[in-house]
Structures are given as C-alpha cells and as structure tokens.
C-alpha cells in the first residue's frame, strides 16, 4: 500500500465527502496499487455491511411494533377514549394511595457503601482475637507471581489454624469456588495495553460467575475512568483491572470475625470495597486503623510464603 495514502480519507471517500480532485487522486492510486485497491474494496464492503447491520437493527425494532396490537390501530376511537379515561382515573387513584404511604428516601447507588463504611468501624477487628484465628487469604497475583500462590496461601493459612474460624456455613465453599474461579481466570488472563492506561486486566470466560466481561458496557467505563483519571482501577465482580500501575495492587479478602471483608492495597493506600457487583467506581479509603494493621499483617505473612 502506498505510504502517502491517508487512511482518514477513506471514511470520507465512502461517505462521498471528498472533492472531485481528492476522489480522482484516490482512484488513481488504486489503479496503480493493486494492494491498495483490494484493501479499499474490503473496507467498502465492511462499511456497507455495517450500514446494513444497522438497517436490520432498526427494521427489527420496527417489526416488533406490531401495529395491529396498537390501540391506535385496532380499538374504535370511542372505546379507546373511554379506556384511556378509565386508565387515567385508575392511575390517579393508585398514585393517591401510594402517596399516603410513608416515604423513604430512596437509596442511591452510593448510599449502601457509605452505610457500610459507617457501620463497620463499630465492628472493627480485634487484633488479639484474629491473631489466634486462621485468616483465609486471597491474593490476586501480579504478573510476576505464580498462580498457585492463591491456593497455596489459602491451604497454608487454613491448615495452620489454631482454632476453627467462626464463619457462616456457606463461606468455605464460596471461598473455594472463588479461588477456583480466580485461578481459572488468571490462567486465561489476557493482558493488553489499552489507551496506555490499562496495564493488567483479568478476563474470565465463565460469565456465570459474573466475571469481568471485556465486551460488556464496563469497557467504556474503564475508558472513561482512564481518561478522566478519577481512579486507577476498577473492581468488578471480583476481578480487577489496573491502570498505569507500576506496582500492582493486591486484593485481600479476609474473614474478620466471621465476616468476609474485601480490601485492596494499592499505591500505598488501603481501600475497602464490597463483595458484590460494583457498577460504579466507588471505593473508599480504609480509615479503620485496626483494619489497616490487619492488612499489613496479612501482606507480611503472604510475603513470607513466597
């Protein structure tokens, strides 16, 4: 392909936005360069197919609007008017009843996290207590770390338990499943550079576990984050994507007094987040000194396992 061909002109070429001179120039280049010609033909077919695809989308949308089921087309006007009036009265009545109920400020997406943070300090871990209890640890390895450290750490810490953990019956199986999923995810990890910011991304083909799907809507959230530089990472359904990160952060999932808590140690800051799907980038720095000390202890113990 000729090196002086400007690819930006291709779109304008297909949209017929080029001047006659520009168009003739391209056609001349195509005549002289068979490779260029074949590439442009290929691109033309792709663009036409994209347009056709969108047409089909819109047609399917319109097809779903079955006019025969629409009251505008099937119900006689008088009956339609009566139906509308009745529906309006019914709606107004329901609205009136509903407004009589006590109202509660609907929680915003951010509120549960704020509530969580507010509640948790009262239940801050007692270090003396946790020192005698085994701590189940999950660490998401960095690129340099072997994957097996996840299971090793879990098994090692569990086996050295001085006393059984007081935990909800569902936790061990869940933790086991989580390790398995994480290991599988890491084995299939695809690492790609993305807008120069995303350094590491875990993807998992097992979407049933709600793993990060790079084809999901969150892909553009990642980009928005990266470009706005609000945060350097995203935690989504137990998978972590790190941006521009020279020293990869560590996820720590620790059962503290029978409750599974999730932390991230990243860039010398400790964060805590939820064990649930996070669709917004909402993280709170950990201010609980006891929790920070606990995380530090965990990190030291994990280092010693290497």
């Amino acid at each position, binding site marked *: 392909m000729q090196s002086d061909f400007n690819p930006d002109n291709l779109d304008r070429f297909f949209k017929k936005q080029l001047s006659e001179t520009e168009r003739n120039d391209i056609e001349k280049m195509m005549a002289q360069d068979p490779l260029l010609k074949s590439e442009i033909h290929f691109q033309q077919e792709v663009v036409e197919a994209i*347009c*056709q*695809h969108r047409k089909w989308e*819109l047609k399917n949308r319109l097809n779903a609007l079955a006019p025969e089921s629409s009251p505008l*087309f099937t119900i006689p006007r008088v009956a339609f008017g009566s139906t509308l009036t009745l529906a309006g009265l019914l709606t107004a009545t329901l609205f009136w009843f509903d407004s009589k109920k006590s109202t509660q400020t609907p929680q915003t997406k951010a509120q549960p996290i704020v509530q969580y943070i507010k509640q948790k300090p009262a239940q801050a871990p007692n270090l003396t207590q946790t020192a005698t209890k085994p701590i189940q640890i999950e660490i998401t390895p960095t690129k340099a770390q072997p994957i097996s450290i996840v299971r090793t750490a879990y098994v090692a810490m569990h086996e050295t338990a001085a006393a059984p953990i007081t935990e909800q019956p569902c936790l061990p199986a869940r933790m086991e499943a989580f390790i398995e999923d994480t290991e599988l995810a890491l084995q299939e990890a695809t690492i790609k550079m993305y807008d120069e910011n995303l350094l590491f991304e875990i993807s998992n083909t097992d979407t049933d576990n709600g793993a990060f799907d790079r084809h999901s809507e969150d892909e*553009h959230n990642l980009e928005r984050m990266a470009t706005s530089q609000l945060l350097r990472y995203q935690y989504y359904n137990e998978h972590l994507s790190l941006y521009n990160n020279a020293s990869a952060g560590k996820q720590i999932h620790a059962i503290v007094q029978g409750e599974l808590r999730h932390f991230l140690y990243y860039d010398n800051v400790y964060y805590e987040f939820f064990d649930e799907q996070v669709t917004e980038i909402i993280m709170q720095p950990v201010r609980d000194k006891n929790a920070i000390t606990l995380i530090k202890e965990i990190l030291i113990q994990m280092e010693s396992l290497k």
Partner: protein
Amino acid sequence: MRDSQLIEKIKLGDESALDYLYRKNYKMMTRLVLNNNGTEDEAKDIFQEAVIIFWQKIRSETFILTSKISTFLYSVCQNLWRKELERKSKYSREFADTKEYSDFDKEEREKIVHDCINELGETCKKVLLYYYFDNFSMQEIADKLGFSNADTAKTKKYKCKKELDELIKSKYKATDFLD
C-alpha cells in the same frame, strides 16, 4: 407530537421517535402498497425502508425537509414501491436465477461481517453503527456513549474498526472480498 418535535428527537438519535413515526403512519403508508398489487409483508417492508431512509436523511446536514413528514414518507414509499414493481417485472425467471447466484457470494460475505459485528463489544458496535450509518459526529457519539470528549470517541472508533477488520480477516483472506 408535532413534526418539528419529532425531527428534533430524531436528530438527537432518539429511537422512540422512530417508533412513534412508524405507528402513526403505518396504516396510511401500507395502504399505498396494498392498493397497488402488494401484500401486507411487502407493504410493511417498504414502509420500514422509508422510515429508515427518513431517519438517515434527517441527520444529513444537506437535507432540508420542505413538506410534512407524512408527505415525505408517502413519496418515498411511492418511489420504493415503483422500483420494486419494476424490478419484479424486469427479471425473467432465468435471469433471476443468475442474479441470485452472483448475489450469493456477496450475501455470504455480508453474513461473515455481520457475525463479526455481533462479536464486538456492545460499545464498539454502537460506535461503528452510529458513525457509519446514523452519521453521528464524534462529539455526538461521545455524548451518547459517555466518552469524555470527541477525541476519545475517535480513538475508540479507530480501534473498534481495526478490531472488526482483524476479526473479518481472520475468518477470510482479504482477497476473498475482491470481485
């Protein structure tokens, strides 16, 4: 909804305006085809084409609507149906078979591209569809899809297109697309 309101909504890419337009004018437009040797399916097809043409035209900078929307749609339906009737009467059975055969390859290639488009992420798909078909500007795409600015949208479009090209080429060699 007035025509001016409808046009504004369509310019913003509000597809519910399309729904409204379709339902409002369905009976009148399909009657044109039905009264001229067309079936219900053909009438629906022609009217859907007309609505989609209108959707695209409205977004074009050079298009100026000088009549009511229904008048415009009616004339588009007329033209489309006339072309369809001409096409039907022009081709003999033999010639139609030949045409179907030569179209088969193109349809096959189209199907491959469609499958690849469906493999793209939802955001990538929307960026490409909005850009190439709906003629949204980069700023409009950025606003619609939540990108920070037009440059980001442009970069995204470039990457998505590249991803699509590679997907297609991985399934077929580029020479397969030569006539």
